[in-house]
């Protein structure tokens, strides 16, 4: 039996075909191993993996609410510490639970310095309840609460920079990863677990249903997000960026035109002004993190 064959995340869960969150869950458990306690916030992953009386998880798993995910993880961490046990605690949440609803408890847990890892699978909206915008929804994405139409080009606000906020709490290790590069994701999860103190990993996980693309394109879309500079995969140690995934950048258009949530930028006619604004976001990312590889011509 190989590692993959004794998976800690069993098939039979109700995720859509080609779900990135399901893939992220498998990769996270592969990296973490069986001595792990998962605390899950409400969200797509919680709903599709544990319809009562079934569960896809083969590690201890607890769900309470949207908002108190980090508080439950803090309590478990404290109890394990008191008993002198070495199990690792992972708090898992979607971007809605992490960026918006659970922010208070997350901030509290990081400020108190509990030794656990918070992993956010970021699909950039509330997918479980029907694609409402969240603090992680990128600029100009059309969702059911930021619909694009005659008077709107979708979500008006930029994505919240949560890794920076959590690094500002004094977190020793903050990283972003993507399902497009699974070995890198696993390495970052492992590193976060091995680092003492509160650590945060944000996993970019494209949602085929919410973003509007075919399930087989999940990895291709995730790769494009990195290659266009709209998502930067990096590691931050004690507030300093120490490693960045460098790319030969593609125009953002290649990423946008593949998805239904950005369709209004191309139909009925091309909206060059808005595409230029999104390109500017990618350019700012590239400058801030230095992701560009300049090929010699």
């Amino acid at each position, binding site marked *: 039996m190989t590692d993959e064959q004794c998976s800690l995340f*069993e*098939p039979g869960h109700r995720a859509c*075909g080609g779900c990135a969150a*399901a893939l992220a869950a*498998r990769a996270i458990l592969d990296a973490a191993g069986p001595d792990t306690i998962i605390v899950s916030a409400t969200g797509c992953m919680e709903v599709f993996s*544990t319809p009562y009386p079934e569960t896809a998880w083969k590690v201890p798993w607890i769900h309470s609410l949207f908002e108190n995910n980090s508080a439950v993880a803090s309590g478990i961490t404290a109890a394990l510490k008191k008993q002198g046990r070495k199990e690792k605690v992972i708090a898992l949440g979607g971007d809605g639970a992490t960026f918006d609803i659970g922010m208070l408890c997350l901030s509290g847990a990081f400020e108190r310095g509990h030794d656990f890892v918070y992993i956010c699978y970021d699909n950039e909206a509330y997918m479980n309840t029907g694609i409402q915008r969240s603090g992680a929804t990128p600029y100009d994405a059309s969702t059911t609460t930021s619909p694009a139409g005659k008077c709107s080009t979708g979500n008006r606000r930029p994505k919240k920079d949560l890794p920076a906020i959590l690094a500002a709490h004094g977190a020793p290790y903050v990283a972003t990863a993507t399902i497009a590069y699974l070995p890198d994701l696993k390495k970052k999860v492992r590193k976060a677990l091995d680092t003492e103190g509160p650590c945060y990993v944000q996993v970019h996980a494209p949602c085929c249903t919410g973003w509007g693309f075919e399930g087989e394109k999940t*990895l291709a879309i995730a790769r494009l997000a990195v290659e266009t500079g709209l998502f930067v995969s990096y590691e931050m140690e004690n507030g300093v960026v120490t490693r960045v995934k460098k790319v030969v950048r593609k125009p953002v258009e290649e990423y946008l035109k593949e998805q239904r949530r950005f369709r209004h930028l191309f139909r009925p006619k091309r909206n060059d002004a808005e595409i230029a604004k999104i390109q500017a976001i990618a350019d700012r990312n590239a400058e801030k993190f230095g992701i560009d590889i300049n090929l010699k011509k």
Partner: protein
Amino acid sequence: MIMPLGLGCSSRPGTSRVNRTGSWRTFRPVFLRDKCTKCRLCIQLCPEGCIMEESEGFPVPDYTYCKGCGLCAEECPAEVIEMQKEEK
């Protein structure tokens, strides 16, 4: 004093296997062996975790759970996975 919690519920690990998601499938991935390089990429990136390695090292999908998303066929570097329409 220890207060018993009367709330909540629990279930046995890995019980989702009773739910045979293979019935969702409209396209079936067919693995052609002759050109397979045994790179194991499909085994790693299947969101269901239902592609196994058989004794010779070739990947074998478990059609009981495969939802037919086509991610393996799309990503296979040797292009040896074919999506064929499901006949029921």
